[in-house]
């Protein structure tokens, strides 16, 4: 195991109704690093995020953050230790305004964030007084991200934030994620859009049916017949 790793997964398994949807997942992540997590629908990407963030308990294996074992900790404790995430289907506090959404995380997340700067960063300053349920899905996704940032994470897990964005919007999000990585936040980015992923990282982990199919650069991945087959098959 690398001593500089911030996040380390080893032998992580998750079963639903006896069926393993994540199998023997293992990888490391360093501060400021961006790992692309790709794979066909149902390959276990979102589940992997749920396991790391503590939304589901793992059935086997270990997860370490900065050398400390965290896989038995409640989700809110992991948040305090520096893990946060966005949701594939965004989950803001729908009855609260944009600003209130961020305020909750600022109050409870264990950090001392600059809430104005976060609003600015995700491009929601003009929407600050709007109720979250009235936002577009894209804005709700950015609000998820803002709420996560308000807990001052060391690791940010981003689940398909690019789906539904136009190329210009994708560029804005890519720049934002790169800026976060520059601030030493480690990112796991689940994404189907490989062009988008290619802009922000060259390290990808390919999942297929819950197992690691490939780990390496995006270019190698797209040249790998197994990977190509998995995507066509999925």
């Amino acid at each position, binding site marked *: 195991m690398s001593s500089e790793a911030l996040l380390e997964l080893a032998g992580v398994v998750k079963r639903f109704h006896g069926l393993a949807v994540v199998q023997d997942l293992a990888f490391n992540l360093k501060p400021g690093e961006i790992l692309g997590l790709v794979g066909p629908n149902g390959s276990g990407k979102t589940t992997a995020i749920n396991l790391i*963030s*503590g*939304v589901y308990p793992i059935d086997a294996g270990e997860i370490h953050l900065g050398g400390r074992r965290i896989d038995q900790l*409640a*989700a*809110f404790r992991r*948040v*305090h230790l520096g893990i*946060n*995430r966005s*949701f594939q289907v965004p*989950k*803001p*506090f*729908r*009855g*609260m*305004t944009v*600003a*209130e959404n961020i*305020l*909750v*995380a*600022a*109050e*409870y*997340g*264990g950090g*001392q*964030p*600059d*809430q*104005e*700067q976060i609003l600015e960063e995700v491009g929601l300053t003009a929407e*600050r*007084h709007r109720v979250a349920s009235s936002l577009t899905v894209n804005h709700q996704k950015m609000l998820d991200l803002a*709420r*996560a940032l*308000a*807990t001052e994470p060391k690791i940010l897990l981003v689940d398909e934030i690019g789906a539904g964005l136009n190329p210009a919007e994708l560029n804005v999000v890519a720049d934002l994620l790169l800026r976060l990585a520059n601030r030493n936040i480690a990112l796991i980015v689940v994404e189907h859009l490989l062009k988008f992923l290619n802009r922000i990282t060259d390290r990808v982990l390919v999942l297929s049916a819950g197992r690691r199919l490939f780990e390496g650069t995006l270019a190698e991945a797209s040249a790998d017949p197994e990977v190509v087959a998995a995507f066509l098959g999925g």
Partner: protein
Amino acid sequence: MPSARPDQIRQPPLRDGIILIVVLAVIFLVAPKVYGNQSLLLVMMTFVALAQGLNLLYGFTGYLPFGYVGFFGAGAYGMSILVLHAHVPAIPAVIGGGIVAVIFGVILGPLLRLSGAYFSIANLATAQILLLAVANPSLTPLTGGPYGLKLQQVFAPGAAYLTMLVIMLLATVIAVYFRRSRFGLGLRAMTDDRVSAEMAGINIVRARLIVWLISAAIAGLAGGAYAWSISVYYPDAVFGTNISVFAIVFALAGGVGTVIGPIVGAILLYALYNAIGITVPQYFELLYGFLIVILVLFLPEGGLSLLRRRGVDVL
């Protein structure tokens, strides 16, 4: 605390809360001098406290306790047993009743793992079990069994009335706190989206246990003061399911999740009940049955939600 905290949180001003508490105190201090039936006013305050205590739980965490009366009865019996068997003075015994209810709440804490109707029904069952336990003839030396208890030696209606007033105001103060504090903001987040609340860093299990125990304490204190005021009672008088039903109807009708809703609901509907209910109780139960169905279906947040929908942010 966050370094930059913009003007962002929508909450009613503290001034409204203070005015409400003062008005409520004045009304119930003056009312006995104007209207002779002090015991009716005491029961009304009891229901304001119970509706508010139930609102703290249901309105701020979403758990609807059908067996809320269990805490009330536990407080009544806890208070009475302290007076009768430990010779504790009445007011400390009322506080003791509140503590007994909190202990009962701790024991029932695991119920909070249940959701929705499962929680409500399991809670109803625990109140029934507690009633059967205290009414058990073999416990007669301690609880009076089916014959109930008599507390004449501490009978002091004026003091009991003021104690109930303080308990009702305490429930109101806590509700104001829930509407205006960081803790209340966390509760709002939890009821809005549980998973997201965890991702905001909220310790949900702890927060809802705290609310559960506060809600238990209010009912237990009210039960203690109520037992003191009536001084002679059968088990049914402090464990009857109709007490839970009243508290739920009053809170729901007025509006849960607000401070004013349960107060207005309890005062108006209890007054109505007394105006027409006593003579035709069977119709009243029917009416309340209908009222629950209609409220849950059409106005799940209660009467005040009509104002809220129009953008009036009531306390």
